[in-house]
């Protein structure tokens, strides 16, 4: 019964979305207030309906209703509750429903909190958002309906892919979708601005928080996914340049670019048409990501819903929205006048450089990702583009970005002096160079990887600190730090986070130690400065899997640090083995142990790794996301811009009171 209600709500949501996509737009033409306002009602209603439908599906998973096709294929009655819930989006149909739920949520947020938008603009943006809803609700209903029943329900389900039965991955998709789909807001705003033919500081001030939120969630989603790969896949890799990973990374890069260019639009009324283009492309790449993940056109290690036919539909949706928006852009963009004039040496130039580097790196990832497809179709060459290509093609751009960032972030708007800003940043530069030199001297004969990484990390973090300290003014009044706008703190924290992640990746890749061997119970071996002893291997039966667990004592200088428990699991329903690495997380390094197969002579294959600075990769990502939230909490983003006459008066007063 609940399932039928959910199905019905989904169909209703589709109808409501159809109305949301059309009626407000007609309203803006006829100047009819009621019709324009209908967009808000429809957006709320659409959200409530999709939410009801989604909850109905969750309910089916939690109660293990095996008369539903998706539940049978992706769940099992013995599965722990949390994975019954997360199983809802651990499959194509359910994850599309989550996708649309988040889309509707963003639309509803614009309806609920967008009171500082003009009537006409909000109606247009909500109509565009509604149109995206129509496309994807239609896609779900006609090609991937999660509410299909089975004629003969089985006694039990076929279980969720065991690799997905993990806390890190349970919450990875929701965050990723919050990011992907959040960019739809920037897209809708961009298209609405093109339809209205107006882009100004106020527009940028509306777009920024949405983009910032999307970027922040995307950061968390990507970090969770990469962390999961690190501890779950069994060899401690954290990034594989896999098409599916690239699919989430490209929107992230473009969202980061959009974030920065919208600052220029807001503060300086420049870079307008570029910013609009970025907003279109960022969401375009989100759709492209959805297409890549779900079509199976590009083979990938974790594509989980391969179906070429569905892929074609998504490709159609992609072409319709991005093509439409770009056409609109081609017609309207020439009329968008940028006003701000600035010197060659200025924050504007620095942000243009930021955008160049981020956009080019997104493009490089894009070309590398689809190159096998191009080569096969156009040149009849079956080839692969793997990590070695991306490492060579992508890394230099990030190094350039890291070099330029701290300096660019202290250049003043409009006109700056390179010499002056250089002098301000002398201390961090010297510090970072000294650190890199020290590392270089200590590791003679090795690659430049670690010194460059450490330089960038130190340069970005100390640069961000210097930027804050400079805000203290002449009298070095510490209390001023607390009064700084949250956005300034957000900037410093996020930039530091980027530096820490860069440092960690370089240090991990340069200094990682690996050891593979066969050990018998009782045997001791040495990796780096650590002694490891295999104490015991035993079998256990847990919930829905069988486990082989080893006890490995980790010692340093004959002192016991901890007992680690690497595990091998076997899921009988899915007939799939997985590994749970034993990881000893410490500040400066992880010790990472994987238990392998039993050998004929009674030993076990054991892989041990020392991974320096591994935690810092995700600590840096968390800092980036935290910086995003800090910025997002800045009151300036929530109040109406001063320059806008139609803005509510009280908002103007709040700002002038600051």
């Amino acid at each position, binding site marked *: 019964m609940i399932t039928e209600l959910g199905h019905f709500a989904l169909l209703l949501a589709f109808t409501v979305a159809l109305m949301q996509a059309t009626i407000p737009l007609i309203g803006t033409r006829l100047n009819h207030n009621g019709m324009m306002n209908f967009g808000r009602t429809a957006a709320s209603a659409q959200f409530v309906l999709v939410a009801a439908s989604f909850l109905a599906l969750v309910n089916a998973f939690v109660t293990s209703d095996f008369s539903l096709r998706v539940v049978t*294929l992706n769940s099992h009655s013995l599965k722990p509750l949390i994975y019954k819930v997360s199983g809802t989006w651990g*499959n194509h149909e359910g994850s599309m429903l989550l996708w649309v739920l988040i889309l509707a949520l963003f639309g509803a947020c614009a309806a609920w909190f967008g009171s500082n938008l003009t009537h006409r603009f909000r109606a247009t943006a909500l109509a565009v958002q509604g149109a995206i809803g129509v496309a994807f609700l239609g896609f779900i209903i006609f090609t991937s309906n999660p509410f299909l029943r089975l004629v003969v329900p089985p006694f039990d389900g*076929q279980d969720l*892919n065991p*690799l997905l039965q993990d806390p890190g991955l349970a919450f990875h998709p929701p965050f990723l979708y919050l990011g992907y789909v959040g960019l739809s807001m920037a897209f809708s705003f961009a298209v609405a601005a093109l339809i209205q033919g107006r882009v100004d500081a106020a527009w940028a001030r509306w777009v920024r928080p949405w983009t910032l939120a999307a970027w922040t969630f995307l950061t968390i989603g990507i970090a969770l996914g990469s962390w999961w790969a690190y501890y779950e*896949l*069994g*060899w401690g890799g954290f990034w594989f340049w896999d098409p599916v990973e690239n699919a989430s990374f490209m929107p992230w890069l473009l969202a980061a670019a959009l974030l920065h260019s919208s600052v220029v639009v807001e503060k300086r009324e*420049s870079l307008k048409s*570029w910013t609009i283009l970025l907003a279109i492309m960022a969401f375009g790449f989100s759709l492209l990501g959805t297409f890549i993940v779900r079509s199976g056109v590009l*083979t*990938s*290690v974790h594509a*989980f*819903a*391969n179906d070429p036919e569905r892929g074609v539909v998504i490709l159609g949706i992609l072409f319709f929205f991005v093509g439409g928006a770009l056409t609109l852009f081609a017609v309207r963009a020439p009329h968008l006048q940028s006003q701000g*004039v*600035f*010197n*060659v040496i*200025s924050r*504007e*130039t620095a942000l*243009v*450089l930021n*955008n*160049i*580097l981020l956009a*080019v790196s997104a*493009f*490089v990832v894009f070309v*590398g990702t689809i*190159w096998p497809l191009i*080569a096969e179709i156009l*040149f009849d*060459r*079956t*080839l*692969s*583009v*793997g*990590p*070695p*290509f991306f490492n*060579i*093609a992508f890394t*230099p*751009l990030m190094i350039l970005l890291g070099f330029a960032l701290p300096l660019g972030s202290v250049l003043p708007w409009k*006109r700056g002096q390179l010499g002056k800003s250089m002098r301000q940043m002398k201390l961090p530069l010297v510090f970072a160079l000294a650190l890199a030199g020290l590392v270089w001297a200590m590791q003679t004969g090795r690659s430049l990887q670690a010194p460059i990484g450490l330089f960038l990390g130190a340069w970005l973090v100390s640069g961000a600190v210097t930027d804050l300290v400079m805000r203290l003014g002449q009298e070095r009044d510490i209390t001023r730090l607390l009064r700084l706008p949250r956005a300034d703190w957000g900037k410093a924290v996020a930039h530091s986070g980027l530096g820490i992640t860069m440092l960690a990746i370089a240090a991990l890749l340069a200094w990682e130690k690996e050891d*593979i061997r*066969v050990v018998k119970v009782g045997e001791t071996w040495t990796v780096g400065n650590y002694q490891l002893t295999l104490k015991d291997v035993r079998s256990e039966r847990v919930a829905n899997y069988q486990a082989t667990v080893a006890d490995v004592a980790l010692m340093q200088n004959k002192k016991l640090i901890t007992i680690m428990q690497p595990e*091998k699991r076997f899921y009988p329903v*899915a*007939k*799939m*083995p997985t590994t749970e690495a034993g990881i000893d997380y410490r500040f400066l390094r992880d010790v990472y142990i*994987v238990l*392998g197969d039993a050998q004929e002579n009674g030993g076990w*294959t054991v*892989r041990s790794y020392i991974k320096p600075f591994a935690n810092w990769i995700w600590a840096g990502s968390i800092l980036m996301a935290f910086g995003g939230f800090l910025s997002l909490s800045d009151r300036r983003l929530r109040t109406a811009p001063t320059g806008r006459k139609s803005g509510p008066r009280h908002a103007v007063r709040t700002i002038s009171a600051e």
Partner: protein
Amino acid sequence: MKHLIVIIFVLFATAVMAVEPHETLSDRKLEERARDISKGLRCPVCQNESIDESSAEIAADLRVLVRERLVAGDSNQEVVDFMVTRYGEFVLLKPSAFGVNILLWAITPLMLLIALVIGALFIRAHSALPGKIQDEGLSDAEKAELEKLLKS
């Protein structure tokens, strides 16, 4: 969906273990080279894994093969070439730089150059020479509005 589970099964079933201890060479230099080479070779039956990471049977065979060639005295390039003649260009995770692939390898410098030129043109169009930016002052209309605001 069953099809999908099979795919994932093939992918991950044995992916847990990559290089096995008994495959490795006792000569450390040679072993290091073997690891380097295998990290750049794609496992022919896997979706997107190098033979160093994969533990499909064929990946294990190829790892042993790489080591055999090295022991026989091949250079790294010779080993890679040997694999390409057997399995095709597909096994190269680092695409070769001939033919249309030159474009792929040139993409970073090329795009960067194009973007920098566009950026420079944009900046030139919107920038002023030092000293040219002055306070443009307020227009008469703006002055009137300011007056009005100050009075209110």
